[in-house]
């Protein structure tokens, strides 16, 4: 479980996160939705400590994350898997080496076991026969999937995914969404996913938090989201013709 209390963050005087309080549950896929520029990435990065927050508190289970020192943070971080919006694969390393990096750093497995684990993770994101390629040699969507494989290599306790299926085709998107939901439930992970894809919302959203201009505007489940009378949320949810059709039948 991850909890944030009244967190605020501004960049050179411009507020980006405004007094956000939320709880992200263990074993569930917690979605953070909102339009482009609403502050989703900044929120995720603030929770993992890549941005220092100006105010508020962040808790990882019983640990008061923003109060502890560098060494204790490192211990929590070893339990974190994170997928960055841009993938953030190491350019100088092959696909296989990328996935093996966290294993090399923190596991005591033998080389064969590490390769086996890397292949297992890669297979889960449908990457085969690309182990020796470099990030510059694979497609955008493949990069994203390799980055997911790297994020889950160490069986994280907390998983953060920033736009896991932007840039993927609809079919692969569903595969990735299902994978995230599956491992979340299988290993009882606390998972936070940023997305603006309504398909993901309806597919895997156990708990949904809607961010509007840096504020938490709405919170609920995928069943509730279609019934909400919140204007800004509806504008976001029913932006597509298809969604409008589902709700209003026209």
């Amino acid at each position, binding site marked *: 479980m991850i909890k944030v209390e009244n967190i605020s963050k501004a960049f050179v005087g411009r507020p980006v996160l405004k007094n956000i309080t939320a709880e992200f549950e263990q074993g569930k896929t917690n979605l953070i939705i909102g339009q482009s520029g609403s502050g989703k990435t900044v929120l995720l990065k603030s929770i993992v400590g890549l941005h220092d927050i100006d105010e508020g508190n962040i808790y990882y289970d019983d640990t008061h994350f923003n109060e502890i020192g560098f060494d204790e943070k490192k211990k929590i971080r070893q339990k974190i898997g994170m997928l960055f919006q841009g993938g953030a694969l190491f350019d100088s390393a092959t696909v296989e080496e990328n996935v093996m990096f966290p294993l090399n750093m*923190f596991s005591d497995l033998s080389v064969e076991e590490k390769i086996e684990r890397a292949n297992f993770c890669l297979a889960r994101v449908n990457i085969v026969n690309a182990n020796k390629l470099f990030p510059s040699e694979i497609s955008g969507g493949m990069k994203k999937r390799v980055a997911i494989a790297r994020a889950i290599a160490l069986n994280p306790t907390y998983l953060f995914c920033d736009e896991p299926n932007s840039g993927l085709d609809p079919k692969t998107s569903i595969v990735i969404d299902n994978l995230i939901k599956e491992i979340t439930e299988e290993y009882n992970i606390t998972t936070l996913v940023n997305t603006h894809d309504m398909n993901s919302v309806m597919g895997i959203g156990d708990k949904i938090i809607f961010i509007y201009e840096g504020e938490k505007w709405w919170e609920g489940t995928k069943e509730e989201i279609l019934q909400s009378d919140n204007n800004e949320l509806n504008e976001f949810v029913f932006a597509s013709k298809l969604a409008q059709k589902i709700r209003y039948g026209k």
Partner: protein
Amino acid sequence: MRLVETIGLYILFLKKVFARPQRGKIFFQEVVKEVDKLGLKSIGIVSIISFFMGAVITIQTAYNTENPFLPAYLVGLAARDSILLEFSSTIVALILAGKVGSNIASEIGTMRVTEQIDAIEIMGVNSANHLVLPKITAAVLFNPFLCILSMGVGILGGWLVGVSTGAVLSQDYIDGVQAFFIPFYITYGIIKTVVFAFLITTISAYYGYYVEGGSLEVGQSSTKAVVFSSVMILLFNLLLTQLLLS
């Protein structure tokens, strides 16, 4: 004010860099990679430059000492001492600041703007330590060899070109190179090389590590890294010369 702030940040950065590596074995592998990238791949340019500089120093010294009252061995001696004292440490360091410094700053800067550093950090690995300490270690260990190589190639270049252009007689040059030899000059050159290697790698890594923005800023930081490392090399050259030779 900006300068004080930069120096403060630089010292904090060094504190982050000089920590115990997460895994000794990985650290060692990285050092080996960096020796190849920063050291072995610089042998070519260091040799070429040393050869030509040795040649030019010899010809110029010969030209300036065409006086029958001066001993014939003077050319070799003067060429040797300028190579040992200044050339193979300072000038080679300036060249490496351009080659290695821009390489380090742009590599680390690109990793910063593409969130690769964040990705390392988020795994619970000290990114500054993981990325930079191997580079410092490799350069500090390997650059003395480049310095010694440069000394040898420079003196050889002076002899080959000096003799073949008729600027100096072979035996006079060889006598000169051996005359009044002070072994400490080599130590002095190596001490300077080690300090310069430290300056180049840390300053360039610092500029790369704190880039904000995109590819444009990476380019700018790489330029700054080269300029600032070069200035620091010149400054420390002065300090070390005062300290070691006076």
